[in-house]
């Protein structure tokens, strides 16, 4: 990473004796979508506030576009659009007026403002509803208006704090694809914080897992799962119409392959763990043996697994980190049961 647009060096924030953010170092390069992932209370919002210069770090440095955020917050805020997790609007103004007010605070010239506001409302899909009062807006619409708020300023970086909170599933999908599209079209750098694993997985180029104020790991999804699950990073699930034979020459043939680590057979489902992607070979082998394949699915390790794995390791290391670990556990198990 030669030209990081966000640079955090040893960033620390303590409230009394409790450390909300503990010696965080992170680099995010231009045009990237970075997912900051962690349970509630992990220090995600505090980190974001420090990048914006809204909170002073106890130690360390946050540099955005090469500017120190705590000593020169205004310059940082000119380049950076921030959408807080609970967004408020002036209820007695229409959505468009709300947006134009933000435009004025950013010194957008009056004659340009109205065109830009209309255009931004169209982009986020609120073109029809822009003259409604924001008090009549639904949660999802407010979230979109929040994005419009950020976009009208034409920032270089967008920081979204829990952007999908409280939107219905189809809304989330739309919202995330909108963010992804905008990022690709306009070369925006996006920092997205969430505790929703699947959503982050859908849009982010890179993720950082953040627990108890510390960044446990960062990297793209593939590297993350490779590091964690090591050898068994590809799992192939093949289902057959008839119950699969528990043994036989094809299973033997599979086992003979170097990269195959493990084969489990459960009725008409065969699971093959391997260290390389050998899907075509396996399928060809089964077809040649005359078996009726009804489905082939490559099982990728989701953030759920990654999250869980890291959490386990982390818990072993410090059980003392009571609060966040507890929250973490709860939020994880809730997901698991659901």
């Amino acid at each position, binding site marked *: 990473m030669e030209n990081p647009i966000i640079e955090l060096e040893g960033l620390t924030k303590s409230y009394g004796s409790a450390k909300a953010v503990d010696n965080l170092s992170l680099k995010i390069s231009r045009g990237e979508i970075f997912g900051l992932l962690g349970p509630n209370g992990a220090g995600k*919002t505090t980190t974001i*506030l420090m990048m*914006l210069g*809204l*909170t002073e770090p106890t130690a360390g440095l946050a540099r955005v576009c090469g500017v120190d955020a705590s000593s020169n917050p*205004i*310059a940082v*805020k*000119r380049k950076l*659009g*921030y959408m*807080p997790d*609970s*967004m*408020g*609007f*002036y*209820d*007695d103004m229409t959505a468009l007026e709300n947006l134009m*007010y*933000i435009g*004025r*605070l*950013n*010194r*957008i*010239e*009056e*004659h*340009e403002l*109205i*065109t*830009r506001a*209309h*255009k931004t409302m169209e*982009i986020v899909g609120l073109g029809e509803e822009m003259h409604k009062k924001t008090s009549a807006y639904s949660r999802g619409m407010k979230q979109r208006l929040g994005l419009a*708020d950020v976009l009208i*300023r*034409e920032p*270089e970086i967008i920081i979204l704090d829990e952007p999908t909170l409280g939107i219905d599933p189809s809304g989330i999908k739309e919202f995330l694809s909108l963010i992804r599209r905008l990022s690709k*079209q*306009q*070369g*925006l750098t996006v920092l997205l914080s969430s505790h929703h694993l699947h959503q982050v997985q859908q849009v982010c180029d890179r993720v950082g897992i953040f627990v108890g104020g510390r960044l446990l790991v960062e990297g793209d999804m593939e590297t993350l799962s490779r590091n964690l699950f090591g050898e068994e990073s590809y799992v192939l699930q093949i289902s057959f119409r008839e119950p699969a034979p528990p043994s036989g020459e094809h299973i033997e043939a599979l086992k003979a392959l170097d990269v195959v680590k493990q084969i489990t057979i459960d009725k008409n489902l065969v699971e093959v763990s391997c260290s390389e992607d050998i899907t075509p070979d396996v399928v060809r082998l089964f077809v040649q043996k005359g078996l009726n394949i009804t489905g082939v699915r490559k099982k990728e390790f989701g953030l759920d697994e990654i999250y869980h794995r890291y959490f386990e390791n982390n818990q072993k290391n410090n059980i003392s980190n009571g609060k966040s670990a507890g929250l973490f556990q709860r939020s994880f198990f809730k997901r698991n049961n659901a």
Partner: protein
Amino acid sequence: MESPLVYFKGLFSKGITHKGLGQQKAESPFRAMTRKEAGDHVRSWRFIVMLILIALTFLGALYVSLSNISAATANINDPDRLFVYLKLLTTSDGTLPTFHVFISFLGPLLGIALGFDAINSEQNNGTLTRLMAQPIYRDNVLLAKFCGALIVVSVLFLCLVLLMIGGGMMITGVLVEPGELLRILGFVAMSILYVGFWLSLAILLSVRFRNAATSALAAIGIWLFFTVFYRIIVNLIMSAVLPSSGPLPPEDLLSYNNLLLFLLRLAPSQLYTDAATTLLMPSVRSLGPLTMEQMAGAIPSPLPLKESLMIVWPQVTGLLAATTVCFALAYYLFMRREIRT
């Protein structure tokens, strides 16, 4: 601009029409905020209620003084009888207090109403985070809140007083003297300053307390303390301090009197009433006791405006200082605050 194409379409149609008007400069964020605050106040119900209340007391006070104006201006013993418009503001037959007395206890209410939820309501609605994420200075937010409300108050007072002068001209047919006009404008400025003090106190409380109801109650508590209890407490203190036995020598009497005045003047409403009385009654020569030697040879005539201003200057300074202290405290608390909802 990241993507000129996105904004291209509208620029052609709109941009050309505006070029004819000349390039407008983008207004500063501070002005935009002040404008919004003032607009919000004008449209808010609580301001309309306060407006009606103040307009009614004004009309009531004016009605009483108009019905007594001929008697007041005909009173030969009164050196101020020639100032018809000042008389309009200060004459009363005892049924209703005069306008400046009304303002001395309604003004605080106005200031509190406009300021008690300035910061905390924004914080509770989540708009403060949104505002702080914009490239604006934090102190500008506070200052815009203060200025926006103060502009509204100034316009209100100016309108009332100018209406009064206009109405007085229609009814009496007497032209207003320049000195008189300046005194009335001075009184308006004093009233605005007085409301400004309560406004900055209310803003301070709105920064300090997260809950709007708490800050409103605290502000009203302070107001009640100064309007009702403060005088009682001062009286209690004075009766405790004063020796009970026998008549006092004049020097002691003077010093006790000064102590009493000093204590009373710690209340902002006393400062305001003192200043308003001096400005509106040109014959008032001193706000403290005068000895016989000082009075000897003095002709009971109205003071020139400059002399009256000299008398109220300490009051003006005191109110200004109190306002500034409240504002500075609010600023101090707000700048160090971590903004999150």
